[in-house]
Structures are given as structure tokens and as C-alpha cells.
């Protein structure tokens, strides 16, 4: 061996040993003080910006829900609102004005007091054309502040003002934002402002943000709502790209919870862990098939015939579909608004699966069976369609294939085409060249305003994918949105859903439940009992109630000052104080790292497969026996 090589080897060995030692003596995966740090993994659409007016991601909203204050907030039953920055409010009898009294001891994280100026500024910014809240504040005609702690709104009459507008706008510090967005209606300035570092007044503050990795929230010890002060010091929202590794991290105890939702298949793997609890609640999402009924569209014209749509709706077994695709974690759908929504109509049951009936409808309407098993319209157009579905949801692609199978039994040919969301959007808008698209919506459980998707004027905004065009519907919606009492709102919401149920611009499929999981032994205080589960974009209780399991303070303090005087607003639900979730019994503080005793089968299978393949290839290669020269 050459003398010259040996020094290099020594250097290499030393370097490796050094690195190994460095790694081994680094702080362990969870530091000892971490019992007051809660880590939640987030595996959905990645974080874009903290700016609450320009963000389009749920993770941003979820993270800032307990960072910014609102005038009022949703409670767990959306009944509709409870106090936050405003401890008291009065809605005037004509439902076109409301007065709010602000607490006086609220301060921003830089010490400046929160005043009515901040509220006015925030609502003005919300009205910016680049703000996603603009439609909700567009009904406001004027805002006044008679003094520093009182705000009066005037708006186009509607009873929905509190839930739709007042609870929607986060209050941001004017004295900080004015430097970047001096003119609240300047859309460029608003879009450019990333809002980090963040000055806030809520129960938590944003203390760290590393792009692509995590957000760190720290409890605000001076939060004005003493009873709502957090029990946990730090919350970390860690971003994950892949739900599988996120669930693995939960199993390994490296994170304490997962959001926004996990797949049914992953629920199975978590069942073996006694310290992990899976929470299933009504969700905010539903899947549907939109039928192109746009009068100026270029889809198959037979879809404009109600009989065709009815037949198709009867030719889907919704129960079986929900079982196969979501393993029971979805509820077959009837009306537009899902089962966790305040305006859900239980009387609209899913269409009955009845192939005989479907065939009969088509026969009676004159669609004769063609030569190759595909029906033909009286004017000679075959019932042959393309069914688009977004390929970001592979389970829905499977659903589309199953549906196409059922439809073929009534003489309808549907070719499934899975494309990505961007491509699908360009197919639908602006020219409406599709027949069907299988897609989903997320909607706030507090409001019925998703119904505006079907307004005639929504075809240009990239919203209405059915192209539904019904002036009666438009008028009724306008009535609902300006109703001055909740009875009317409910009545109109039900009637609008009924219209859709009858006209079938959407064939509703199922409402998906929200599935979340968390470590129930190391922490307690999860607020499960709300649509969307403990970690949704409307649940502001969980982060506040969370506490380490060993801490003596275990009573949850989310008793709300159910406020206020007045109001002609009729509430449909009764309770105003939400239940705190009972903490699971914890005898001793257990460390958050646990390992399952059972070696998992997939792991063994994987290793065995690897070894077998290598051996097979060795054997195969050895058998070649080429002449050796």
C-alpha cells in the first residue's frame, strides 16, 4: 500500500468520527422544556403569507386565528357570535346599523393600546380590492368612532351582518400597517405587504417563522381576556410535504398532532397507539359533480335536459361510494351545505340509487339505446361525455371511475379524464367546454353564502363551474342576503338548496368528515366538539385550552361571557357556552416519545422484499456464465 494514501484515510476517519460525535451530543429531538411546547404538523396547502387579507391558505388563517383579535368570534355552534375585542354590542332594530363597545385594556404586542382607529382601519383595508374579505365588508356604508372605544357601523340591511361581516375581519394595528399601506385601498401596497414580523393583540404572538419549515407562536401574558389566556407557552406549526411521514412523526412522538385532515387508511395505523387519539367531526368539505348547464357553454347539449341529470343522479350509489372511497368517513350528500353547516337541511336526502328508475326516466324522455350500448337523444346526440376530475385527489379519481361504471349500466358513456387543478380551471373558464367536473368545495360552517356560487354572474369569476343561470334563484339569494331576521334567512337558505336539489346543476356526492389525530396523553384541552375538529380555521379554542397533561390546572376556562344586550337577532341554537373537552386521564406525565411494541408488518415486508430481490438478481446474473477472458 502506498505510503501517501494513509494520511488521507486517517483524516477521513477522523472527520466522520467528529461528525458522528457532534450529532450524537446535540440536543435530543424534543428538549426537556418541551412539555410547554406543543407541536402540530400541517400537511396541506403550503403557507403563503401572514397577511390575513391576502392569504388564500387555511394554514395561515388557522395560525393567525389566535394571534389577531376580532370584534366578535364564532362559538362552537355558530350561534352566531361571542365577544372578543367588543365586549358588548347593540344591533339596531332596522338591522342596518350596529354599535360596538371595545374593551379598554387591550394592547398591541408593542404596548400601544387597541382603539377604535384600529378597527376602522382594519375594515377599510378589508374593503381593498385585493382583499379576499372585500365582498363581506362591501355591505358597509359608513363607519364612525364617536370615541376611542366605540365603533358604529352603517350597512345595507341584513341580519347576517354579525356573522358575515363583524366576525370576519381581523383587527390589525393601524400604527404599524400605516407605514406600509398608507392608503387602505391601494391594492399593490396591500399585496406587497407580507406582514412579518407581526404586531398583534391576541392570546398568542408570532415569535418565529422559518420559510418552508415552521411557525412559532408564544403565549401573550398580557392578553386582555384573563380567562382566555393560554395554558401553554409555545405552539409550533410545522409544515410537512407528505402526510405519511407526518403521521410517522406523530407515532414517533416528534409532533403532538396532525392537521388539517388525514386519510382513512392512516387511521388504521394509528389504532395501535394507546397515546394517540383520532378525532372525527363533521367537516367543511364536500365533493360533487358539476354539470355544464351554461346557456352559452360548449359542453354536450343533452346535459341541459333535466331528465338526463335526474337519471344520472339516480344512477349513483352514494352509500357505497362513500364506503369504498372514504371507508365510511364521508356522509352521502343531499343539499348543498354540508352536515356541519348551520344551514344544513336534513330533509334533502341523497338521491335514491335506482338503476331501473334511471333507465325508465331516460326511456320516457326518448333516449333510445344505441348500437354500442350508448343512448342517443331524439336529435341524434349520443349520451357520451368526458368526466373531468382533479388528479390531486387520487381517491376521487377512483370514485369517478366507479361512477362511470354505474352510468354505463344506464346507457351513458363517461370517459374519466384526470387533470391537475390548473388545467381543469382553464378548461372550464371562460368557455365552458366541459361536460362534467368532479371537484370539491370548502365552506365556512357559519354561513350559507356558498350558495352564491350559483349566481348567474359568477360564471366569469372562475367560481361557477356549472354555469347555472336562473333569475329566480338570483332574486331569492338577493333576498336572503338582505333578510332582516334569521327565520327568513333559514327559510330562504332551505329554499335555495331545494332549487338546486331539483335543478341538479350539481350532482352532490358526499360530505367528508374531518379526521385529525393528536397525542392525548401528553396534552389535554383539545376542543373537539366543533365542525372541522380541533384544528380548523374557525376553531379558536383549542390553542387556548391546550395544556400539558401533568399540569395541575386542568379545568378548562372557555366559559364565555355570553354577552350583550339587545338584538332582534333570533338565534336558532340555544347554548352559548361551549363545552370544554374532558381531559383524558393521565396518571403520570409521560414522555412524548413512545414506540409501538409491535414491529409493523409493512416494515418487515419491505425489508424482506428488498433482500429477496437482491438475491434473485445475484442468482440471475450468476447464471449467465459468459466465457471469462
Amino acid at each position, binding site marked *: 500500500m502506498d505510503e501517501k494514501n494513509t494520511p488521507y484515510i486517517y483524516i477521513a476517519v477522523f472527520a466522520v468520527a467528529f461528525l458522528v460525535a457532534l450529532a450524537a451530543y446535540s440536543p435530543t429531538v424534543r428538549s426537556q422544556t418541551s412539555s410547554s411546547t406543543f407541536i402540530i404538523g400541517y400537511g396541506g396547502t403550503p403557507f403563503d403569507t401572514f397577511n390575513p387579507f391576502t392569504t388564500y391558505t387555511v394554514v395561515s388563517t388557522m395560525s393567525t386565528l389566535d394571534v389577531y383579535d376580532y370584534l366578535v368570534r364564532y362559538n362552537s355552534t355558530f350561534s352566531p357570535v361571542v365577544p372578543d375585542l367588543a365586549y358588548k354590542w347593540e344591533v339596531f332594530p332596522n338591522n342596518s346599523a350596529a354599535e360596538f363597545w371595545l374593551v379598554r385594556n387591550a394592547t398591541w404586542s408593542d404596548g400601544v393600546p387597541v382603539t377604535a382607529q384600529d378597527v376602522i382601519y382594519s375594515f377599510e383595508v378589508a374593503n381593498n380590492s385585493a382583499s379576499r374579505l372585500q365582498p363581506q365588508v362591501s355591505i358597509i356604508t359608513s363607519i364612525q368612532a364617536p370615541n376611542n372605544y366605540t365603533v358604529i357601523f352603517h350597512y345595507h340591511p341584513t341580519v347576517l351582518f354579525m356573522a358575515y361581516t363583524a366576525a370576519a375581519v381581523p383587527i390589525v394595528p393601524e400604527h404599524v400597517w400605516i407605514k406600509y399601506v398608507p392608503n387602505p385601498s391601494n391594492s399593490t401596497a396591500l399585496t406587497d405587504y407580507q406582514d412579518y414580523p407581526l404586531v398583534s393583540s391576541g392570546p398568542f404572538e408570532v415569535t418565529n417563522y422559518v420559510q418552508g419549515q415552521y411557525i412559532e407562536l408564544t403565549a401573550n401574558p398580557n392578553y386582555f381576556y384573563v380567562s382566555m389566556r393560554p395554558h401553554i407557552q409555545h405552539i409550533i406549526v410545522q409544515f410537512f410535504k407528505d402526510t405519511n411521514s407526518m403521521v410517522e412523526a406523530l407515532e414517533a412522538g416528534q409532533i403532538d398532532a396532525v392537521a388539517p385532515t388525514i386519510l382513512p387508511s392512516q387511521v388504521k395505523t394509528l389504532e395501535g397507539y394507546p397515546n394517540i387519539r383520532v378525532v372525527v367531526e363533521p367537516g367543511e368539505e364536500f365533493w360533487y359533480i358539476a354539470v355544464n348547464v351554461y346557456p352559452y357553454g360548449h359542453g354536450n347539449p343533452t346535459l341541459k335536459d333535466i331528465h338526463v341529470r335526474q337519471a344520472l343522479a339516480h344512477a349513483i350509489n352514494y352509500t357505497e361510494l362513500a364506503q369504498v372511497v372514504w371507508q365510511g368517513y364521508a356522509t352521502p350528500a343531499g343539499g348543498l351545505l354540508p352536515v356541519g353547516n348551520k344551514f344544513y337541511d336534513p330533509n334533502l336526502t341523497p338521491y335514491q340509487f335506482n338503476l331501473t328508475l334511471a333507465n325508465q326516466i331516460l326511456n320516457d324522455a326518448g333516449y333510445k339505446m344505441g348500437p354500442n350500448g350508448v343512448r342517443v337523444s331524439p336529435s341524434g346526440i349520443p349520451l357520451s361525455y368526458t368526466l373531468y376530475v382533479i388528479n390531486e385527489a387520487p381517491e376521487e379519481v377512483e370514485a369517478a371511475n366507479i361512477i362511470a361504471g354505474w352510468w354505463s349500466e344506464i346507457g351513458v358513456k363517461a370517459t374519466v379524464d384526470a387533470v391537475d387543478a390548473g388545467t381543469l380551471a382553464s378548461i372550464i373558464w371562460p368557455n365552458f367546454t366541459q361536460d362534467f367536473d368532479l371537484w370539491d368545495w370548502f365552506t365556512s360552517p357559519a354561513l350559507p353564502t356558498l350558495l352564491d356560487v350559483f349566481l348567474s354572474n359568477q360564471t366569469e369569476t372562475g367560481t361557477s363551474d356549472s354555469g347555472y343561470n336562473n333569475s329566480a334563484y338570483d332574486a331569492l339569494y338577493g333576498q336572503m342576503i338582505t333578510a332582516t331576521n334569521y327565520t327568513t334567512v333559514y327559510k330562504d337558505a332551505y329554499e335555495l338548496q331545494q332549487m338546486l336539489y331539483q335543478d341538479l346543476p350539481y350532482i352532490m356526492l358526499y360530505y367528508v368528515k374531518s379526521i385529525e389525530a393528536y397525542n392525548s396523553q401528553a396534552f389535554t384541552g383539545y376542543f373537539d366538539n366543533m365542525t372541522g375538529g380541533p384544528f380548523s380555521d374557525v376553531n379558536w379554542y383549542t390553542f387556548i385550552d391546550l395544556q400539558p397533561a401533568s399540569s395541575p390546572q386542568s379545568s378548562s376556562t372557555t366559559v364565555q361571557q355570553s354577552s350583550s344586550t339587545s338584538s332582534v337577532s333570533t338565534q336558532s341554537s340555544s347554548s352559548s357556552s361551549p363545552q370544554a373537552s374532558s381531559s383524558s386521564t393521565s396518571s403520570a406525565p409521560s414522555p412524548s416519545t413512545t414506540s409501538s411494541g409491535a414491529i409493523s408488518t409493512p416494515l418487515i415486508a419491505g425489508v424482506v422484499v428488498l433482500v429477496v430481490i437482491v438475491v434473485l438478481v445475484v442468482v440471475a446474473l450468476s447464471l449467465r*456464465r*459468459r*466465457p*471469462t*477472458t
Partner: protein
Amino acid sequence: MSLLDIENLKVYFATRAGIVRAVDGVDLNVGIGEVLGLAGESGSGKTTLGYALMRVLPRNAKLDGRIIFEGRDLLSFSATEFNRVRGREIAMVFQGSMNSLNPVVRVEDQVAEPLILHGGLSEDEAKKRARELLAEVGVSEDKAKSYPHELSGGLKQRVAIAMAISTRPKLLIADEPTTALDVVTQAQILRLISELRDRFGLSVIMISHDLSLLSEVCDRLAIMYAGKIVEVGSKVEVVNTPEHPYTQALLASIPSVERVGVDSPSIPGEPPDPINPPSGCRFMPRCAYARSECKEFNGYLYELSSTHRAACVLVGGKPIERVPR
């Protein structure tokens, strides 16, 4: 006292088609300071014999017999032991048509390598010596720094020779050293080899298919056919009085400048299959004088004189009338 004594050397190759008997029982010796020519057509086993002496055969080769070099049987050496013989006491120069030089290493470094390996010299000393050696064989100093692809064929062979003799080996094996070189360069190379033999007492085994070439430079000649030696003797004896029909045919087939316009006779037929050689004399199928005794002939080299031997039934025993069939 001979430098090299090869006793019943056999080199067999294990292949998928069968066992190739490339060298099938060869006896040969080389004296000190002697140039032995080893002639034969392609496939005769002469190159394999050369490689066997150097033990640079491929892995599927099996050797049998004894190679006595300076009293020691080389085949009994371990690989590590033989590493000290190879390139130091026995060296090899390869065919002129081959690329026997490493393309990415400078010529002087390649010549220096055996000196570092065997001579224990430092890198700088070895390089200095290498340049001297190259000068001795006719490669100037500025060319010493070149890479092989920058040199002509003749220069490359000189480098190869310098490389081989750098450690002052006792035996040099030269395998077709002048193939693919032009006649002028050929003569130069041959002259170089002769000079080295004169100056240093170098023994040479020169392997070639070209008898006329060998007859110029060699002291003794051995003719090989189908893995066996068929005739061996001094140059004069073999060239002037060849006794083996194959040797005679070879000599007759050399084109001559004097015999312009006349086709040289070629030997009909082909060498036997090395996997399944025929029993008896291997040249029999192509021999003009074949007779029934040849079928049982085992290749014994009959003595014609103290130095001249030939493996033919016509030689051994009673003199027989040579009558072509």
C-alpha cells in the same frame, strides 16, 4: 548452463466451448546472452507461451509443468513472490501494433515505474534514470515528457523497450516487436535489441511469425505448431537444413525479392482445433509426406545433432525415403 529451462509446459484455457490446449507440452531452453527465435503461425501458441513465462495470462488459464529460471521453478512461486521476478528479471515487450503504454501517463513516468517498483529509487531519481534510459534507446529528452499518443510507432516501441530493460532483466521476451512498423524502423528496433544483447548479456526470446526476420537476429530458432515445438536448432541448421515438413513449407512460403513474379507456395489446410487436437502428429492433415506411422506419433523431438532436433517420424529411426504422396 542455461538461463531458462522449460519442461513439459502445458497451458490450458477453460472456456464454455471446452478446454483449449494452447500450449500442449513444450520443452525449451534459453542460454545466457542468447537470442532464441520462436516462430509459428497465429494460433500456434507462441504468444501464449510468452505470456505464460510472464504469468500474465487471464484467469481461466491453467499451467502445468516446470519453468526453471536460474535454478528455480517459477511456477512454484506465489503471486507476490513472482511480482518480484516479473518486470525485473524477466521483462516483456509487446507487439508493435498494441497500445502497451498508458495513455494518460507521461512516457518518462512509465519508464520510471519499474525502477520505483523494483529498484527502490525515489520518484525523482527514477525519473532521472528513466530519461537516461530513453536517451540510450534513442528517445530524446524533449520527447521524454510526451504522452504516448504524441509519439510515432517506432518511438513508442523504443519507449516500451526502455521500460522493459530499465531494471536490467536477465531475460527479455519480445512478442512481435516489429509488427506494424515500417521496414526501416523495423531494422532500427532489431539493431537496438542486438546492441542490448551485446552490451548487457541480455537473453532474448523473440516471438514472430516472420521467419526471415528471425533469421537475421536470432542465434537459435524454435518452430511451434499447434501448441508443440516441432523443430529447434541453431539458426544455420534450421534455415539451411530444415527437417520438419512444416519448417520446410514455412521457409518455402517466404516471398523473395529474387523470385519476382512467382507465387510463393502456401500451405494447404488449416491448423487443428485446439480444443480437440487430433491424436498422433498434428501436422499430418496438411503434410505432404504423411504416412501411417504418423497416426501414432507423439511429437517426440528426434535428435539430428547435439543442437538440432525435429519432431517427425521421417527423422527418427531409419532413414526413410522422402517421397511425397
